[in-house]
């Protein structure tokens, strides 16, 4: 009995140690990656680096800047947000307010949205090229410009559209969560006062769910800023002398720039500082956005708890 007990203790200790070690390894790797990037990147990041252009050499650490890429990334995610938020919110409203859970079509839509989140990002790139660039863009060119190339080529517009499709599930899920959290009493009160269903949603439910919509938007932006594969064929450029000025221009982007620098540089040792700097900017950007989303969501939950009393 005593022996058995002792054996059990050892076993317990051993396995607790093993799983604890697994956890420690993961956490250590996170710390190493983030620390490494922060440490090496901080040496490069300066005001000149952030606001400088690439005119004086793209691969030279002392002169290259990344402003065009930051500009491109911001333009891309803004365009993407304009596309993804309205469509995502309308879909979420349909799913929570109108769709009946027991209907097969609702289940199919839900399954499709869940699966959309798992489609490889490179497939989105192929889709963007096949659908937006060739089908839609080519179609517009044929109809409006008599076949001259305006929209039927990779542009920032199509890159943003592709990215909007990619980030759609994020917005839908976040918005749905927010809509479900709105107390039923509010809806019923509004309906009882004679408001139509549409009016109730527009004036009562949506304002209440706004932080959730915001969270979804921020998370989508953070996801969009980090994805590279979907924009490789739909609009990102290796190098451009000018900032994009209209929707049919190509653009440079932070993530794509990291890829270009780390695989195409003629002298990797000299490019390394720029790379670390660019990576730090991108990681800081996505982390800040994620943090913002977490804070907004926490505030919303706290308020809801108060409302529910």
């Amino acid at each position: 009995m005593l022996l058995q007990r002792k054996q059990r203790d050892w076993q317990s200790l051993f396995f607790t140690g093993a799983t604890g070690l697994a956890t420690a390894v993961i956490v250590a790797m996170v710390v190493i990656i983030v620390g490494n990037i922060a440490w090496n990147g901080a040496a490069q990041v300066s005001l000149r680096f952030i606001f400088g252009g690439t005119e004086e050499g793209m691969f030279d650490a002392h002169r290259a800047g990344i402003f065009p890429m930051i500009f491109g990334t911001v333009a891309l995610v803004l365009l993407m947000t304009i596309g993804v938020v309205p469509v995502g919110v309308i879909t979420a409203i349909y799913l929570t307010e109108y769709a009946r859970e027991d209907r097969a079509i609702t289940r199919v839509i839900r399954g499709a949205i869940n699966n959309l989140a798992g489609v490889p990002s490179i497939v989105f790139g192929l889709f963007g090229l096949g659908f937006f660039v060739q089908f839609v863009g080519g179609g517009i060119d044929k109809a409006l410009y008599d076949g001259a190339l305006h929209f039927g080529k990779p542009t920032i517009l199509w890159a943003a559209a592709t990215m909007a499709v990619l980030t759609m599930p994020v917005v839908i899920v976040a918005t749905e969560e927010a809509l479900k959290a709105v107390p039923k009493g509010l809806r019923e009160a509004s309906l009882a006062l004679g408001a139509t269903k549409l009016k109730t949603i527009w004036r009562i439910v949506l304002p209440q769910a706004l932080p959730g919509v915001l969270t979804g938007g921020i998370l989508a932006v953070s996801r969009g800023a980090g994805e590279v594969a979907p924009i490789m064929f739909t609009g990102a450029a290796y190098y451009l002398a000018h900032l994009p000025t209209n929707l049919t221009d190509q653009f440079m982007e932070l993530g794509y720039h990291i890829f270009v620098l780390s695989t195409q540089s003629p002298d990797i040792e000299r490019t390394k500082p720029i790379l670390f700097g660019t990576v730090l900017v991108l990681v800081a950007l996505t982390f800040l956005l994620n943090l913002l989303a977490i804070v907004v969501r926490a505030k919303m939950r706290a308020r809801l708890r108060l409302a529910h009393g």
Partner: protein
Amino acid sequence: MIFLIFAFVGREALPVILGKTNSARAQKPIAAADIPQLSADQLAQYIGVNETELKSYDADTVRTLVELKAEELQQNVNPDAGINAASWGMMFRPHQWFGYDKAEYIWQPVSEIPKYNLVPLILGSLKATLVALLVSVPLGVGAAIYVSQLAHPKWREVIKPAIELLSGIPSVVLGFFALIVLATVLQVLCGYHSRLNVFVAGVALGLAVIPIVFTISEDALTSVPRSYAQAALALGASRWQVAWQIVLPAAIPGVFAACVLGFGRAIGETMIVLMASGNATIVSASIFDSCRTMTATIAAELAEVVFGGDHYRILFLIGALLFVVTFIANLVGELVVHRLKARLEGRG
């Protein structure tokens, strides 16, 4: 939307799927006497000019061009020129190409005779994914058990966000890290030959998959009712025994789903393998060789192909394959999680 995606990726790949493409480079020489029997566009295609140009030539010029072409065709004969490499057989079975000693799987889309064998790419994807799962499943599931069952609640609040932070790191950054830092460190540690290989890519890929495996397993483990664990603890079991013998078996479908979803993520990941795997299309069993995955092939080659050509269509076919594989993986994963939730909540 998802149907639209499949429709449009599939649409571009359709001619290949139906076996309508023909990448054969060989053309039969046409005798000058046959010229009148050919239509204008056949003739134009044969000589390699467009129809309006053809119309501007007189009969003698056309005859000379046809004769020249016939001579040219006779001079460079490659015995493989008549093979349609874009057919199903050539895409999946080995073939002994001209100049090779034995039948091999070869992906060489831009050589004189294009070779579109998908086996090296599929093998590359599977190898990288396998390494990624070998890294991420033990770590992810181990950490999930620790965090959900054994760790002090105070620690839990620190560890969970730290691991979820990993999912916030863009994949291009992980790829960069693997390429610049990890590759060098692992080469020094393991002492293998080529610096970028399946192992480096797989480890980096594992980092990308860990958050998924961890989050889903942790979710499944936490959703096991407390009463199970309390009953076992009351009978005198240690915390570890409860975790291993009571909670884990109850949540095992969730852990399985985590692996399946992790697989889907790993096989579809592009930037990491594109940057860290070395991208050579080698068919071998070793994980210390360089490899080329399906995703990396699309990313690296799509920018340079002729729109609507065989190569372009085959890249879309690879995309469609990826789509189908991840779709099935996600579907299975979602179903298992759904069933498990329903059962643990006592509805099933």
